[in-house]
């Protein structure tokens, strides 16, 4: 499966902003066999970046042990309606994607 769509929600909580981001990705471990018995090559997201109004607030490195179609929740200090949140990822094949949303 190629990487598909992403989805994100950013909501103002009490004293922080709740960010939930969903990404379509197979997160192949490289240990799994397909129905024909062939090893499915490793294919997984390695880097994840969260930015608020253009400034990086979280940098993450992840492994193939994160579940398929990853879902992450983060919390940002304070925040205001309309703040621009951007999440991007990069995988071990050099593929990447990004999504933007405004805090609601």
């Amino acid at each position, binding site marked *: 499966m190629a990487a598909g*769509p*992403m*989805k994100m929600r950013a909501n103002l909580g009490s004293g922080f902003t709740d960010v939930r981001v969903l990404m379509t990705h197979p997160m192949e471990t490289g240990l799994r066999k397909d129905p024909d018995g062939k090893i499915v090559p490793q294919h997984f997201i390695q880097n994840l970046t969260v930015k608020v109004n253009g400034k990086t607030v979280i940098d993450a490195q992840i492994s193939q042990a994160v*579940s*398929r179609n990853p879902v992450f*929740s983060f919390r940002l200090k304070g925040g205001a309606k309309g703040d621009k949140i951007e999440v991007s990822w990069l995988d071990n094949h050099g593929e990447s994607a990004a999504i933007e949303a405004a805090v609601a």
Partner: protein
Amino acid sequence: MRLAVFGAALVFSCAASGQDVAKEIQRYRQMVAEGSPAELFELEGEALWKKAQGPKNGSFERCDLGEGPGVLKGAYAHLPRYFKDADRVMDLEARLLYCMSTLQGRSRDDATARVFGSADRPSEFELLSIYVAGQSRGVRIEPGMAHPKEKASYELGRALFFHRVGAWDFSCASCHGEEGKRIRMQELPVLYKPQYARPVMASWPAYRVSTSQVITLQWRMNDCYRQMRTPEPTFGSETTVALIHFLTATARGETYGGPGNKR
């Protein structure tokens, strides 16, 4: 790792009581539901709904799911129902198949070549089902029960539910007929009783986290019969629609809340 993850029957120490196990598994399921990527598939289903394809190069945007051509709001909550143009009762998937034929000009063989997909590639029916069902969130479940063919479909569904058949003598009620029973750790809803059918039917189709797959009611009927050791029911057939009709009618009045999340 897959072997270990999917094949192993791991055994726990007997220190934890059965009640604690059930409570922790409940907690697991809740946390899994909160972190589900199901919404992603609604996006893919929407794109497929709008995509022109087949010999007639048609999209589903003129597909009449019972509320009028292209009307999605509440359509899923009112299925199965009788369709005059096809002169039969249809569930969502049978109706999607009908639209693939009439609007896209596709043959049944072409349209049903791959009705159940995989984690790598969900089927058209799975993506479309999850998108269409999502447009009924908050709508009361009210399948068709007025037309004589709707009544006959419901009756057939109930008879099928209690019909013992196959190499292992099962009926649907063998597993879903008595309260407080489990298969392994899976609690079994008594699906001919409204209080059990309501929450279940309000959450199909669903995203199944253990296999990263979208699952539909046609798949559920198919896989139950597989485990009942019968031959295979044909996709969208009267038998499968009747069972779905019986179960949905038993759940009527419940507010649709899906697509859901399964373990």
